[in-house]
């Protein structure tokens, strides 16, 4: 059995509590026991000694936490560490802007190697900011199994090389509690379910991403999200939604907590997180409204990282058995092409799963269009979200 350190144990406990898997009393009880164990066994000195004994390279990974990070740790990082002797130091971020802020403040990428990066927009931002690495795809033979349709948008930005490998995809649709909202009503209202006055004080929304709110504002004001002409109409809809919202959530764990504890009945939500709630038995349904937001996530390797080890890890993660196990754990479909790799029934049943491998049915954010307006519109969103 693989040992885990005290920090990891604490993070796991915190995530479990955040996800609603554990009550408060058990959380604090286990936390106290972990603290005593750390003290008795030498705590930080033990950890430092273990680190000193370690001979492999350390790779610093930052991701979204919760079930996503748990799946990566269990099915990818632990086996990789055992197989290679390298160590993956994984941490949770609230968003990539946090990482960019840290790197900018420090003036170096030290301590940051691989990011579970969100979408093509962020790929472009990292590359434009000069933090993109150049992956040697010869060291990642499993990339051959990745869908061409999911790699193409990345290649369009950096035609000569890649800094990241697409790893999974999903949608940001609408989750609703079936005890309080019927399927008929949800389907009838679509994106406008988030504007239902009858649900005032029971609606949640993701506050961490301006573009997500704008996408839904576009849908609610009958505009093409990738070709918004009337931004005022978009923000008017966001204001309408704000006046009904109980809480803007800022992480997947918080989203799951709010839904599981029935603080909110309706919210936009990440498909995988809802699937995790459903697996826990919560009466939460999920729907993608027409033109709902789809996204793809990549494993972005920052410039200055130990490339050979990073490429080895990516190849390991793209191994069909590993990628499928991670996908089942995090509940987001893998980027592997279903025409080349046989998917399990669990994967096939995941929200947003595309059996064709072409991704034609999903609508992604156009990075050129969205990045161009981000400076102005992200500021506008921050004001709107606070009553402006």
């Amino acid at each position, binding site marked *: 059995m693989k040992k885990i350190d005290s920090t990891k144990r604490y993070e796991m406990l915190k995530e479990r509590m955040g996800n609603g898997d554990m009550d*408060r009393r058990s959380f604090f009880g286990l936390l106290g026991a972990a603290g005593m164990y750390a003290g008795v066994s030498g705590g930080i000195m033990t950890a430092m000694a273990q680190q000193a004994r370690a001979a492999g390279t350390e790779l610093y990974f930052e991701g979204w936490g919760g079930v996503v990070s748990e799946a990566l740790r269990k099915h990818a990082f632990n086996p990789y560490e055992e197989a290679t002797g390298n160590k993956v130091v994984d941490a949770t971020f609230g*968003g990539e*802007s*946090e990482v*960019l*802020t840290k790197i*900018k403040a420090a003036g170096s990428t030290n301590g940051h190697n691989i990011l579970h990066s969100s979408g093509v927009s962020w790929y472009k*931002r990292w590359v434009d*900011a000069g933090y993109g690495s150049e992956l040697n795809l010869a060291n990642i033979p499993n990339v051959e199994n990745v869908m061409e349709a999911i790699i193409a948008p990345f290649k369009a930005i950096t035609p000569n090389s890649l800094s990241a490998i697409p790893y999974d995809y999903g949608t940001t649709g609408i989750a609703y509690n079936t005890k309080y909202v019927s399927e008929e009503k949800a389907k009838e209202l679509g994106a406008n379910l988030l504007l239902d006055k009858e649900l005032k*004080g029971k609606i949640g929304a993701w*506050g*961490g991403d*301006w573009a997500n709110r704008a996408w839904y504002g576009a849908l609610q004001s009958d505009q093409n999200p990738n070709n918004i002409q009337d931004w005022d109409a978009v923000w008017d809809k966001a204001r309408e939604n*704000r006046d009904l*919202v*109980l*809480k*803007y959530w*800022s992480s997947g764990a918080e989203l799951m*907590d709010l839904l599981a*504890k*029935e*603080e909110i009945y309706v919210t936009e939500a990440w498909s995988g997180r809802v699937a995790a709630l459903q697996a826990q038995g919560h009466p939460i349904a999920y729907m993608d409204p027409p033109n709902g937001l789809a996204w793809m996530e990549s494993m972005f390797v920052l410039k200055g990282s130990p490339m050979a080890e990073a490429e080895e890890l990516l190849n390991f993660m793209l191994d069909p058995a590993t990628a499928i196990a991670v996908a089942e754990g995090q509940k987001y479909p893998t980027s592997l092409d279903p025409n080349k790799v046989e998917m399990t029934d669990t994967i096939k049943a995941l929200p947003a799963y595309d059996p064709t491998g072409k991704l034609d049915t999903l609508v992604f954010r156009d990075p050129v269009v969205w990045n161009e307006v*981000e*400076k102005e519109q*992200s*500021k506008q969103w*921050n*004001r709107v*979200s*606070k*009553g*402006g």
Partner: protein
Amino acid sequence: MPSSEQSIDKRPWLLLSPSLLAISLLVVIPMAFILVYSFYENIDLAVDRVAFQFGNWAEVATDGYYRVAIWKTLRLSVIVTVLAAVLGYIPAYFIAMTKFRDKWLLLLLLILPFWISFIIRTLSWIHIFGNQGALNGLFQLLGLTDAPLSLMYNEFTVIVGFIHVFLPYMILNIYVSLEGIDKNLEPAARTLGATPWQAFREVTLPLSLPGLAAGCLLVFVLTGGSYVTPLILGGPSDFLFGNLIYDAIVTELNWPMGATLSFTLLLLLGLVVVVYSRLMGLNQLSKAFK
């Protein structure tokens, strides 16, 4: 005529030099960098241009959005400070006056919450006020309500969160002040005919004012500079000036504006400290060297 040795007393400066050095290195110089950054220009997300322009300052001075945030911050800071003062005085008085032999135990209980992360302490209110929290559970158990009451994510929970975190600072300050008062003064007042309330009001309370004032100042400044508590416990309209700084730096990646807002907050809170210390006579501390 005073001698020249008396007029140039170097002792205070010698004694203060380590603190002054630390403050210079850790506060003054970083703040100077922040001030310089406030004149830079943000071209695009995370892309700044070295410049000397007043665009960021002009925006802060003229945009009503920032004035609203300042008003909300000052208002909430005053509410939290007043409530913390009222709620903190009682336990501080009890600890100072108790004849309990193991008084250290009470003080230990007071600082016990500091052993738990500030974030965890803040999150704990969700398990008390939440839909499935302790309070709603109790209400439903007693048959007072059929369905859970919405108690979370509003200004009330933000205030509760602040008081929970900052109350020990207030209690400790008041306690230290009360502990320094001669225990014979109140009985002396009583022998001169004062009622217990009069003795407290006219003897103990005035003598404990320095601790109360220091506690108020601390809680006010800490509340005014916060942003995490409203983020966790507040609803969409519950935000402080610190949240705007977070937005500018972390979500808009606009460091020059973040620097401008940070310096604005520093000026505002600094102004409060200066005015307050003059009103409350905290500057009298310097007379200790005379």
